[in-house]
């Protein structure tokens, strides 16, 4: 995010577009030069670094590029660099106060060189430091010097710039209208952040995806940019999704402008490290997932699948189980707070048009859960795959004998994975999970990748992965 005076936009027919840079040509050259100078200029003060970039601003200006682009690049690079206060042998605050007090005691103020000198000599003597150091303390007042350059490539700097420009424009947003097609846990993350930031949303179904309209409590009553900085913090979450489009109303002066951006620009933005797989909310869910995978390998079991729209809200079920023709969602209601249960119950009550199994812990199985328009299963403390199997079979049809072919492109996977030979199975599972393969399918995938598993003990995580010698030849 940048100071708003560095925001560069073009406005045309009521639409506003931030100036985004392709990581090539002049912008790439400028970014590279900025980074090279940071490396060269260790020891310079922050002011000197910024002033020293003035010629690049001129260059950009003459090349027909906005000069604020350079200042934005420098600002972002400076943020990633490390500056530290000047190291001095005396405490600068203490030394300054000593000088001022002494000056006041002696003359009131130093009115000429002689008086000034007399005071400084006396203080230097008292503090046991040199006159030069005292001059530093007075003149290089509160300077910070560059000690480490930013650790980033020109391309990364440009992507960081693009993200910052979009976020800085969003500071002025009245609302954010996000249309996405994404995995459940990605949407869940976005909505958790919405909630944590004190924002509100409404959702509706839109084709295969959802539309989420986000603003704040007072937005209804006031056209306000109050929530702009918070809306800007949601942008990185959206950029990570599979398909996305953002619409925002931007309040500039007293005029409303429209801003839109979609996944065709995805490559201009940094990919943040996000967990490829959702974390389990509880051990209960993890156990259930594993046992269901084991007993019904033919079905595709997904954790936190795509978001469902209920009324104006979004419900992200814990699991979905699908055969080739049908899909069933599963929601596990374990121990939670009263408010949480009430909200969940309300959402589930309104959910229509999908097949849903609600598994409720016996202790919570109050009558209200039994009236839900879904299949309700009561369990006691632990939920196993087998508990739901008969019901699932009825809803999905027989689990076929043949193993479900995981929908993974083996060639892509091969390229993305490191060499797994001689790794333990545990390590291989981690690597595959990172690449997006669900744990249910690990064994099958390894085989198709040309590995075999060599069991050395009963602990599966210590089993060794070996490359099958002949596969390459086929």
């Amino acid at each position: 995010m940048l100071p708003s005076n560095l925001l560069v936009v073009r406005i045309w027919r009521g639409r506003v577009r931030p100036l985004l840079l392709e990581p090539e040509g002049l912008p790439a050259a400028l970014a590279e030069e900025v980074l090279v100078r940071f490396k060269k200029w260790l020891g310079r003060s922050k002011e000197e670094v910024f002033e020293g970039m003035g010629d690049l601003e001129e260059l950009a200006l003459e090349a027909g590029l906005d000069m604020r682009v350079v200042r934005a690049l420098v600002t972002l690079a400076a943020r990633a660099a490390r500056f530290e206060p000047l190291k001095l042998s005396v405490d600068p605050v203490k030394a300054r106060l000593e000088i001022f007090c002494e000056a006041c005691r002696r003359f009131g103020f130093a009115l000429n060189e002689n008086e000034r000198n007399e005071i400084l000599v006396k203080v230097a003597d008292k503090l046991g430091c040199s006159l030069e150091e005292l001059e530093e303390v007075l003149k290089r007042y509160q300077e910070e010097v560059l000690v480490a350059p930013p650790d980033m490539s020109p391309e990364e700097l440009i992507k960081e710039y693009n993200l910052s420009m979009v976020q800085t424009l969003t500071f002025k947003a009245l609302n954010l209208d996000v249309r996405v097609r994404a995995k459940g846990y990605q949407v869940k993350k976005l909505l958790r952040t919405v909630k944590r930031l004190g924002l509100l949303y409404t959702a509706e179904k839109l084709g295969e995806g959802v539309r989420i309209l986000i603003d704040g409590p007072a937005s209804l009553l006031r056209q306000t940019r109050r929530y702009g900085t918070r809306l800007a913090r949601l942008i990185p979450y959206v950029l990570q999704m599979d398909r996305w489009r953002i619409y925002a109303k931007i309040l500039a002066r007293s005029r409303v402008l429209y801003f839109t951006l979609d996944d065709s620009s995805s490559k201009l933005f940094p990919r943040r490290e996000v967990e490829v797989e959702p974390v389990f909310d509880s051990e209960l869910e993890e156990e259930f997932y594993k046992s269901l995978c084991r007993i019904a390998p033919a079905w595709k079991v997904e954790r936190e699948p795509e978001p469902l729209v209920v009324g104006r809200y979004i419900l992200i079920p814990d699991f979905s189980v699908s055969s080739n023709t049908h899909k069933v969602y599963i929601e596990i209601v374990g121990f939670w707070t009263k408010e949480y249960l009430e909200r969940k119950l309300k959402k589930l009550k309104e959910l229509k048009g999908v097949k849903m199994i609600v598994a409720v812990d016996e202790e919570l199985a109050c009558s209200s859960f039994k009236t839900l328009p879904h299949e309700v299963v009561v369990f006691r403390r632990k939920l196993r795959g087998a508990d739901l199997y008969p019901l699932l079979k009825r809803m999905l049809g027989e689990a076929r004998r043949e193993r479900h072919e995981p929908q993974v492109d083996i060639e892509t996977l091969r390229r993305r994975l490191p060499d797994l030979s001689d790794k333990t199975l545990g390590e291989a599972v981690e690597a595959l999970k990172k690449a997006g393969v669900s744990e249910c399918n690990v064994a099958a995938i390894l085989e198709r990748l040309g590995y075999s598993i060599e069991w050395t003990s009963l602990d599966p995580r210590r089993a060794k992965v070996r490359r099958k010698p002949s596969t390459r030849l086929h």
Partner: protein
Amino acid sequence: MLRLEWSAGTILLKGGSPPPPVAAYFRYDPRVNCHRSLAIQYRWIIEGLENAGLEYEDDVIHAPPCRFAKPRNLALRDYQREALEAWWREKRGVIVLPTGAGKTIVAVAAIAELQAATLVVVPTLELMDQWERAIKRFLGVVPGRYGGGDKEVKCVTIATYDSAYLNIEQLGDKFMLIVFDEVHHLPSPGYRQIAELCAAPWRMGLTATPEREDGLHVDLPYLVGPVVYRRYVREMAGKWLAEFDIVRLYANMSREEQREYRRLISRYKSFLRRRGLKMRGPRDFEKLIAMSVRDVEAREALLAWHRARRIALHAAGKLDILKEILSRHRHDKVLIFTEHNDAVREISSRFLIPAITYKTPEEERRAIMRMFREGKVRAIVTSKVLEEGVDVPDANVAVVLSGTGSRREFIQRLGRVLRPKEGKRAVLYEVVTAGTGEVRVSRRRRRGL
């Protein structure tokens, strides 16, 4: 039954639709399926429901417990009592008193009288310290601080405008009274939300000059209430404020500075002529700035204007004049104001005078202020930080070495030396570079008196 609930700067009405007397304050919110209103309407909603004799539950204000002793040594002057009485009628409104006339005391008296949880909003950390001292001294309680790293809510809490703006969703339901010091800051598009998203039914604004150049002060009646009491500097000087003189001194540019100044100004003017541009006000100037980011010539013209202004503001001759002033006031307490931070640094280093800028570390700023009050240092040089509110009764000399054309800035800088003291006569020196645009700027700001 109808029920009012606090919700992040707004009020939710549960248990039914708003009845006619208060319907205008609410809007239906489909996101939560009930009606919502801005927190500022709380007082009018309650009044509406009460007047109509309707029953309701009120769960809006969650104030911390409050009790303080009857204030000690709180003797109000006549005009302070009048101001308090004028405000008391509606328990809302703006009190306008010159700097140094003791506005803080009026607010402290109101807090003591109401015995209610109070949020005081101030523009600077310096003023936060000052209010903290006043609250401790007169009410005998330690106030909570909110801002500059602290986040503490107590019965009386002091917050900066910045932190109040950021945190009003958490603060807005904790107080019955909200006091805005230097209330002329409040109507800006950001800060006004402090007033709008706060439920406190009682509101007080304090300032020496409510008027804003952008005209937004017309919103003050909605945000805090109308001006309920006003006194001017000229009515009070001599009795409640120190007598003062304003002395204007002209500095000359060196021959080199003169040559450079003329060269730069003519470059700037010839650009305006070539493009047929006229500079009639700040709006025109903003246009030039906007042009300069994409237009090489416009940028050069702007830079030329900028450099010329700096030459005028910081002409070497000014420091010579400052030296004369200082030698005349070796035993007085002097505040020196300049426009730019590098000038502050230069003056501090040359005359060995402590400096306060927005970059000064907290520890050093506090030490300097304490030493200045105790007389261990007798001058401070500053840019814009100390304009508002610094309370040093025996500071008697102000030097405005450079500044803008703003009337408020000028009045505030003058106000810093007007705190009354027996036999005190204050003087404000204004140093202006002859033969430059600064002469006009100086004329503009003095109109405020």
